[in-house]
């Protein structure tokens, strides 16, 4: 017993213990919102903490994940891609195969069930790429709830197909024209709606940011990705992967994959942020790689802001990564050294998009293409017997127009 205890570093962090009762992940997280929202957040926290231990709720959620979302999603060995890269084996966790085409549905199914348990009749959501908006409109339609989605005017322009999908699903899409007209402004507007309509409205935040309990709740609902993947790796490969890679905007697909592996010290964890035109150009969305601790959208985390504390406009080819903050748990994982966060440029992501399409017949979302690009980079540095698990968080159909436009084509 003594020997075993000595093998473990005494300062090892048990990552499953976070956040604390106030929603803090070390120095990050918390509830930095106006007074009016403190009561609805407390009500939500109380309901969620009860439901997450309620066997009937868990059974209901599991049933929906299996029969509506289509879980479990497979792990696919990208053999042609791996061979071409010539290094470690690249495995893809296929969240793109979920209903609605991305990991976002894992969270919205869960939050919609909570909304129904709380008797709320109206769903609001913010969206960047439109994946979370579609996933929210989807669950609202299924439960017969009114749905309003806030979306930056710039994002509406570059994600027209998803805007139309939301409308087909019965949601109202409200263009947001303030600020930079992207995801952060959509989040501001959704918060303004919520503060105005707290009595009947449930706000489904799409990422692991926002005030407590959202970073916890959205993490929990996406953690099914990592739980499944961990069991699949042991069953199908007889071992855990050597490294995990996921793209990080707000960070929900990444924390979803990472969480079940956080206490597996031998599994390297890498988040790929949007480096846009390059970190040195200032035109990027890499809050962890190039930002600093601050307070935005209800939590303390890494943010991109100027020396006056003003949040700066971000740039990424992928609307879903175009966010100047990041979930507080990622900020905590960065500081603790458990995960590392690196930038992947627009060009690198696009190259990876094409590489995956041509070698494996998979169109990845531009967001997920950042993770694929990082997976390829990493594979080159590792031996052929090593396994890299990349979260393929969404499919790329929504991005076909954006890619065509960059290549000078009009469809």
């Amino acid at each position, binding site marked *: 017993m003594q020997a075993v205890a000595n093998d473990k570093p005494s300062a090892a962090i048990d990552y499953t213990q976070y956040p604390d009762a106030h929603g803090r992940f070390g120095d990050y997280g918390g509830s930095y919102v*106006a007074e009016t929202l403190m009561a609805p957040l407390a009500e939500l926290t109380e309901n969620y903490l009860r439901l997450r231990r309620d066997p009937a709720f868990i059974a209901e959620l599991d049933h929906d994940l299996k029969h509506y979302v289509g879980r479990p999603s497979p792990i696919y060995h990208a053999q042609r891609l791996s061979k071409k890269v010539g290094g470690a084996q690249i495995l893809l966790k296929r969240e793109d195969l979920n209903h609605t085409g991305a990991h976002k549905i894992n969270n919205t199914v869960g939050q919609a069930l909570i909304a129904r348990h709380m008797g709320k009749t109206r769903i609001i959501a913010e969206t960047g790429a439109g994946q979370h908006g579609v996933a929210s409109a989807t669950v609202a339609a299924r439960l017969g709830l009114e749905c309003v989605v806030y979306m930056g005017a710039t994002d509406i322009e570059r994600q027209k197909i998803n805007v139309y999908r939301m409308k087909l699903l019965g949601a109202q899409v409200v263009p947001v024209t*303030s600020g930079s007209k992207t995801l952060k402004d959509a989040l501001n507007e959704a918060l303004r709606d919520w503060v105005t309509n707290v009595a009947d409205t449930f706000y489904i935040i799409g990422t692991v940011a926002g005030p407590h309990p959202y970073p916890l709740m959205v993490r929990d609902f996406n953690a099914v990705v990592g739980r499944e993947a961990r069991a699949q790796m042991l069953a199908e490969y007889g071992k855990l992967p050597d490294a995990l890679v996921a793209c990080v905007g707000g960070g929900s697909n990444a924390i979803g994959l990472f969480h079940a592996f956080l206490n597996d010290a031998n599994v390297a964890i890498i988040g790929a942020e949007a480096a846009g035109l390059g970190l040195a150009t200032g035109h990027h969305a890499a809050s962890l790689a190039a930002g600093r601790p601050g307070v935005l959208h209800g939590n303390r985390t890494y943010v991109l802001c100027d020396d006056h504390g003003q949040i700066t406009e971000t740039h990424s080819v992928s609307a879903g990564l175009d966010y100047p903050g990041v979930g507080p748990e990622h900020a905590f994982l960065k500081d603790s050294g458990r995960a590392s966060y690196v930038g992947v440029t627009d060009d690198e992501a696009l190259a990876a998009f094409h590489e995956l399409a041509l070698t494996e017949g998979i169109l990845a979302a531009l967001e997920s293409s950042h993770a694929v690009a990082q997976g390829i980079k990493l594979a080159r540095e590792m031996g052929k017997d090593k396994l890299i698990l990349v979260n393929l968080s969404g499919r790329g159909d929504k991005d076909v127009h954006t890619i065509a436009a960059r290549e000078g084509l009009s469809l």
Partner: protein
Amino acid sequence: MNRLDARFAQLQAARRKALIPFVTAGDPSPDAMVPLLHALVEAGADLIELGVPFSDPMADGPVIQHANERALARGIGLTQIFNWIGEFRQTDAQTPIVLMGYLNPVEIYGYARFAHDAVAAGVDGVLLVDCPLEEAQTAQALDAAGLRRIFLSAPTTSAARLAALCEAARGFLYHVAFAGITGANRLSLGAVRERVAAIKARTPIPVAVGFGVRDAASAAAIAQFADAVVIGSALVETLAGAHTPDAACMAAREFLAPIRAALDAGARAHAA
């Protein structure tokens, strides 16, 4: 004695209600700022709330959002704001100034540095919209420097939280009249009256009411039971059209004069 506490003591002795105009620092123009602060006082302001512009004002409606955007487009930041307040203080040592804003600009400026520079400039209180009681330790340096932390209460605030807020409140407690954003028009007097009575049953601290107060009539109605009335969006909207400092000062005087008169008439009627 902190200017805020002194001012409320004077007002209570005189049985007057406080008029608290809100303006966004740097709007309608940087040149107008110091003359505008003096004009607000001449027109009857007892305290001034000065908004620190922020890129993501989550609790604000379109009027104050746009004022923030205009100010930021001119590069207005805390250093500039402290300079204006210092200049204002050269000829007005009495009127309390409360800075109202969001946490991130203060966080990046540094809490201790902010507290020092704010006190040096002549700031008396600070209202950080996105820093509720639970996170108040974040900005402890402000309390230590003698700045009054102004907390909000809202219609959604539970009885237990209200008790804690009354306990923690310094300077005054700012009651948000309705669940919503600044500038909306959802004022329900009965509910506000009830809530202010609940606060007053718990604490002797002055209660200010804001959100949805647009004119003399709504201000006078609120002042029947509250100690202070905050007027923001309606004033900011009025000032937005003023293209010179003189025009801004004149617009501010014209806007505030009837409100001041209504508050004073109400107080006289109450006394009689």
